């Protein structure tokens, strides 16, 4: 492993986000994922002779929302160009995209790396975001010696979101990608499913000696379908480039594929001669004109976005920046959190709720590899549990036991408490009786405590809890014990 010392890493990302329109960008065919090959491609998607594209207005709306969400310039007039190249999954022999006049230019997002006191905020600027159509898929593996073509995806609307090369580490790149991912999901313009390819991230990576102003030769990493792989792929590539240069080699401009099984990137093709896509304005489409009054309406319709929501969670609920960040990192998490809080009604306790959503629930979801939308414990069910914590029916420890039972499908919190007899003992006379019994059974320990060995306090708590089968209210237990034991001489 080479040392990063003396090197600066430069990363820019190109993100292709499929827009969640019902139909394709230039035809009426459905965009639903997973259909039988080539059933969701109409004459327009197949590029049959004589067909013409008609722009889907919803795609324009969605791209504009993205621009508004990142405070970018949304062009009153943008145009479509043809990007010409031959490939079997590109039916027309050209892709309709936007080169000269993209719908969105500029804008920025704020990312946070590190936690707690080490947390650092950074603004990442965007170059542009433009509308384009997706190509079909080439299936190289399913047909021996041949390639299958599935054109269901052809014509699916995309926005290609291009960042400035302003990220300086894989962690920053992932934070940026996650933030963009959160924004498109908050806006409801992309389902964000990386496995199905709805949200695809390509990373341009180069390194240069610290202090150098000229950019190093970059490679482009493709085929990264999770944030974890993105981080690993970039880290691998940084190390590869630094080692290559330190060993006297030079980085070649290449497109590289990330192989998650081997955790390495490998060359897909060189880009020595720049591809000539012979871009020119698409004569089949008129310029996209966005009325300024409509744009103002769209701006007013923007939902609360992750940064604003996180700020509100801190000011309104007193949550830490870290918790607020985690809870707002995806729209589904924030929604779950807010629904849980709402379901708790007047007993709502944001900090308690935040602890559970980012703690026990997150841990279980992670272990089971589930999204929060698929959680077997619904927000209502979690609220039912937290109400019993808030009213002292359950200690945190018992609550965890109940939560695990709920996760296992044993029912709601109250019925599990009932069946398992987990109700906390809050009757003070019962607690006093148990304390008295333990003290009477351990006179020597009591004497040691009173003569200054105050650490024995924990021993008594443990003994009483054991007698109470863990159900004694810990706060009450502490109070009674302290009163019965009296002062420990060693404590001041």
């Amino acid at each position, binding site marked *: 492993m080479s040392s990063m010392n003396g090197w600066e890493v430069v990363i820019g990302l190109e993100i292709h986000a499929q827009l969640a329109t019902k139909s394709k960008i230039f035809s009426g065919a459905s965009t639903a994922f997973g259909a039988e090959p080539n059933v969701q491609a109409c004459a327009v998607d197949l590029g049959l*002779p004589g067909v013409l594209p008609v722009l889907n207005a919803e795609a324009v709306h969605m791209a504009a929302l993205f621009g508004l969400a990142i405070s970018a310039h949304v062009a009153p007039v943008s145009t479509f160009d043809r990007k010409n190249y031959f490939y079997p999954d590109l*039916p027309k022999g050209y892709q309709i995209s936007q080169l000269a006049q993209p719908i969105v230019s500029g804008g920025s997002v704020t990312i946070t790396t590190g936690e707690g006191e080490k947390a650092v905020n950074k603004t990442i600027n965007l170059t542009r975001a433009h509308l384009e159509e997706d190509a079909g898929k080439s299936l190289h593996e399913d047909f021996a010696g041949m390639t299958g073509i599935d054109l269901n995806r052809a014509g699916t609307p995309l926005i290609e979101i291009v960042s400035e090369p302003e990220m300086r580490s894989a962690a920053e790149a992932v934070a940026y990608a996650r933030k963009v991912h959160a924004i498109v999901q908050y806006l409801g313009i992309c389902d964000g499913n990386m496995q199905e390819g709805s949200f695809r991230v390509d990373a341009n990576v180069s390194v240069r000696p610290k202090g150098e102003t000229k950019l190093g030769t970059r490679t482009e990493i493709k085929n990264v379908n999770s944030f974890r792989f993105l981080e690993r792929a970039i880290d691998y590539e940084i190390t590869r480039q630094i080692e290559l240069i330190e060993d006297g080699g030079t980085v070649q401009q290449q497109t590289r594929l990330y192989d998650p099984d081997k955790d390495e990137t490998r060359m897909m093709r060189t880009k020595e001669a720049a591809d000539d896509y*012979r871009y020119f304005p698409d*004569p089949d489409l008129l310029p996209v004109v966005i009325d300024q009054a409509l744009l103002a309406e769209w701006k007013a319709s923007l939902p609360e976005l992750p940064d604003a929501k996180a700020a509100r969670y801190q000011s309104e609920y007193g949550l830490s920046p870290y918790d607020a960040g985690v809870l707002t990192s995806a729209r589904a998490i924030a929604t779950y959190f807010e629904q849980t809080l709402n379901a708790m009604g007047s007993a709502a306790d944001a900090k308690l709720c935040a602890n559970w959503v980012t703690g026990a629930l997150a841990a279980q979801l992670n272990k089971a590899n589930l999204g929060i939308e698929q959680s077997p414990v619904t927000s209502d069910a979690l609220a039912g549990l937290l109400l019993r914590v808030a009213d002292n029916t359950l200690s945190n420890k018992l609550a965890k036991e109940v939560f695990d039972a709920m996760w296992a499908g044993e029912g709601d919190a109250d019925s599990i408490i009932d069946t398992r007899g987990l109700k906390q003992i809050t009757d003070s006379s019962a607690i006093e009786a148990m304390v008295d019994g333990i003290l009477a059974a351990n006179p020597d320990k009591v004497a040691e405590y009173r003569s200054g060995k105050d650490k024995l306090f924990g021993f008594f708590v443990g003994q009483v809890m054991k007698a109470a089968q863990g159900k004694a209210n810990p706060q009450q237990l502490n109070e009674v014990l302290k009163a019965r034991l009296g002062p420990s001489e060693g404590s001041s």
Partner: protein
Amino acid sequence: MSDYLQSLSHLRAGLDSGIFSARELTQYYLDRVSRFDGALNAFITKTPERALAAADEADQRLAAGERAPLLGIPYAHKDIFCTAGVRTTCASKMLGDWVAPYDATVHQKLNAAGAVLLGKTNMDEFAMGSSNENSAFGAVKNPWDHAAVPGGSSGGSAAAVAARLVPVATGTDTGGSIRQPAAYCGITGIKPTYGRVSRFGMIAYASSLDQGGVLAGSAEDCALMLQAMAGHDPRDSTSANQPVPDYVTELDQPLAGLRVGVPRQWFTAGLDSVVAARIETAIAELESMGAQRVDIDLPDAELALAAYYLIAPAEASSNLSRFDGVRFGYRCAEPRDLNDLYERSRSEGFGEEVQRRILIGTYALSAGYYDAFYGRAQKARRQIAANFEAAFRDCDVIAGPVAPTVAFDLGAHMSDPATMYLEDIYTIPVNLAGLPGMSVPVGFSGSRPVGMQLIGSPFTEGRLLAVAHQYQQRTDWHQQIPAAYREGAA
């Protein structure tokens, strides 16, 4: 029936009064096609069974009392319009027997109007050419003189109408492909304003220039046919969302006070003197009917030619990329790999002129050349449009030649594409500016017809048709039928 063959309105009267049925009328034209097309080669595909079935349907509608301008009227499509169930070849080996799974908007409209399709006509491959010699289905002959070309690219439609094998046909015009063959064949043709007729289902050559239109025996017939074809189409983003006027009613507009602009630059050394004389006579006729001649300037015709031969090939190079041997059309035998599949399918499937234009266009769009070629061509295009706009401040319509000469001999220009390209010098500027243009027969040079071009400002098809119609009330050039095809015709 022979008393009713001279115009669509006569055919209409015959059908509506039951003097003959749509089936009889269709059979009459099918018989003429069988009899004459062997020599002419105007048709690529004939559809007699479908035609008779459509005619029977029209007869039922007529019997039920329905009356509509094109109900039961036979016609032919240039083989560039997609027709579900009937192959669409674009006169290319590349498409061969390809059958579109859908109808072009123009075809849908004509179907709905009850018109009866007799078949699909020959053309220059992918509409690239001015002689109809660039066809995988062989050259078309000029009915007036079998040694001459019919013009192109809508040469089959023009020849078929001139020989009275059909009363009316569709065409497309990217740089003169309706007007020039109409002129060479002595018939009337109209290329509407860009966007007036839907391009959906019309196989693209150069999308920003292509426009569907009509070839017919008279301006009135053009009006009737265009009426059915024109209109906004949500499936074509470039189609104009403008109401379609009643072209037939507008035919009666008198010429009194009409300012006819005559471009000085078009009557120069490059124009054949007989052609010039015939057009001057026709303009004098318009003046005698109350029009006022205004000499105008339309500079930059050579610039237009250069701009066209960059813009059209550039768009074509991209439009024709879809013909790659992968999904439809011609595929070479036993490709070794993907590049071999592309190279051989396209080299074997496309004819020489199509390949030439794809190469020119690819070059014009290449990195490093784009600004010098495509970029400057677009600038020239804006200049041409501005020239017309300036001219139309001084006149209402422009009158001039369609082409520098009458129909040339078959094979005359095949070895020299550049002289062939000059054929379009007066028609191309009109496409670049997106304006409506017509060709009206105004006499002969020897045995070969001369056409006069009329050009209007955007969406003034009604006025152009009226000028041509008024002229045709006073002249009979449009009623001339080539000797070899007179027998049995009106």
